[in-house]
């Protein structure tokens, strides 16, 4: 049972009460049932920990973890907290370790989290020390369940989480595999921003094709996206994961690898960019989509738009805010042209993104709206065929995937 006093009226998902985005008890319950429950969380890319001992620290939910290559074939994800007195051990963002040693009392852990050394465990010259029945094997660093799938590291706080392939399901596997096909990845760089908005708004936003050409004026203005172009918003069977794929408004299949797929779709000659290299793209993935996203609930969106391949990692920070960590990546075989192209396309995303700023600013405006809402106020989610149905759709005038998300949400949260 939940500790949440408020009740969500009715059983539908065409109205989302504002308190779902602002209530502290709801947030605490989300951490428990979602973030630390039977869900896979994005923990990084294999390419970020190339050698034995390479590590990065990151945050899953609100808990900090160390992601480390503990043997050549094994990635460990360990809670970044000494089992002795609770010290957060690793303070750096990344590096290379032989072992994990707490600075306070030098308790030493192997790279897989096993407690190896407790200084003066036997006392000093026979005096003091831990009791004889102290068992180091009971005090290893907390180990998360880990799966590495096509170069992406997934971790879960729960042992009951099903295998990742089952978790993402058949319907969305194709959109996942399209972006991370198993080719060796290369990090292009990171960006980080704090967005003063509830974490769920980011998930909704990427499953909201309705806003695409209406909010992001840059996209139709410079021919990158039109409301009438072929698109598909698809959910998995539970409704929690979603993918949005969109083809440019021209004859698909005409582009071959390396060809510029944006040159034919500018809407107005007077609205040409002064330097088209800002958005000029070449085909590199399967299919002709210029936009392909795979949102794996609750923590991450993998997305391709033109040649910007990106991971958007969500870190909740209370009901009223979250951090968004961007990892842009490419492939090891990228030539200098492609490297530079990815850097240019990075202009559309991140904290100064010519497209993304619209989202992070509008979501902050939404959160400000929620905070002063009257009792019983709610957002309405009624766009889409039938107005109330929840199903995969092949057009953009729909909020069906948001309804699907909240169908799952009400169930997992028992709300």
């Amino acid at each position, binding site marked *: 049972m939940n500790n949440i006093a408020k009740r969500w009226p009715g059983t539908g998902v065409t109205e989302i009460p504002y308190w779902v985005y602002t209530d502290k008890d709801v947030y605490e319950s989300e951490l428990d049932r979602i973030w630390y429950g039977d869900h896979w969380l994005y923990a990084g890319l294999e390419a970020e920990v190339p050698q034995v001992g390479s590590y990065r620290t990151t945050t899953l939910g609100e808990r900090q973890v160390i992601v480390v290559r503990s043997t050549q074939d094994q990635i460990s994800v360990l809670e970044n907290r000494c089992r002795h007195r609770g010290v957060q051990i690793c303070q750096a963002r990344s590096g290379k370790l032989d072992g994990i040693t707490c600075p306070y009392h030098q308790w030493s852990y192997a790279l897989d989290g096993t407690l*190896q050394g407790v200084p003066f465990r036997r006392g000093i010259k026979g005096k003091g020390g831990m009791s004889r029945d102290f068992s180091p094997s009971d005090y290893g660093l907390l180990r998360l369940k880990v799966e590495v799938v096509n170069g992406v590291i997934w971790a879960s706080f729960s042992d009951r989480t099903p295998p990742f392939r089952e978790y993402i399901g058949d319907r969305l596997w194709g959109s996942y595999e399209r972006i991370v096909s198993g080719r060796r990845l290369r990090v292009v760089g990171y960006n980080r921003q704090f967005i003063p908005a509830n974490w769920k708004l980011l998930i909704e936003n990427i499953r909201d094709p309705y806003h695409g050409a209406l909010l992001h004026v840059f996209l139709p203005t410079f021919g990158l996206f039109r409301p009438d172009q072929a698109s598909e918003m698809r959910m998995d069977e539970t409704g929690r994961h979603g993918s949005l794929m969109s083809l440019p408004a021209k004859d698909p299949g005409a582009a071959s690898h390396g060809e510029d797929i944006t040159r034919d779709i500018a809407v107005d000659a007077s609205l040409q960019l002064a330097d088209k290299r800002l958005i000029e793209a070449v085909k590199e993935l399967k299919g002709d989509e210029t936009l392909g996203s795979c949102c794996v609930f609750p923590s991450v969106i993998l997305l391709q738009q033109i040649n910007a391949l990106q991971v958007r990692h969500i870190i909740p920070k209370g009901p009223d805010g979250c951090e968004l960590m961007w990892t842009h990546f490419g492939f090891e075989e990228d030539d200098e042209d492609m490297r530079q192209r990815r850097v240019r396309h990075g202009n559309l995303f991140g904290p100064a993104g010519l497209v993304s700023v619209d989202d992070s600013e509008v979501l902050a405006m939404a959160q400000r709206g929620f905070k002063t809402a009257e009792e019983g106020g709610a957002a309405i989610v009624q766009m889409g065929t039938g107005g109330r149905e929840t199903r995969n759709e092949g057009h953009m005038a729909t909020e069906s995937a948001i309804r699907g998300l909240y169908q799952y949400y009400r169930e997992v949260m028992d709300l």
Partner: protein
Amino acid sequence: MTDSEWIRIASATELREAGGLLGRSICGVPLAVYEVSGAYFVTLDRCTHARARLSEGYLEGFLIECPLHQGLFDVRTGEVKGPPCTKPLRTFAVRREGEDLLVSLKPLQEAPKKDEIAHE
């Protein structure tokens, strides 16, 4: 540092009274002396992992456990017997003459390297 002559390191009695484990500095070289079932051994008194004093550790049978991280060495051979240690421990020849235990600083291998000897 002297050459191959034998140097007195401890008496058999004081070693026994110390529970079979003593630390001594001979010509600036930190050494640990062990007695196990009437046999005597000497190693460098510095763990190869994080340089703690093995003479402050725990001796069980032929295994010396480092007090800092519980790494293990066999005092007979200097071999690593437990993590997190990976490098073997240098050993020295020792013999008993009457009550005296004598160590040879001309070791079984080459001369101890400078970084192994921390002057106390």
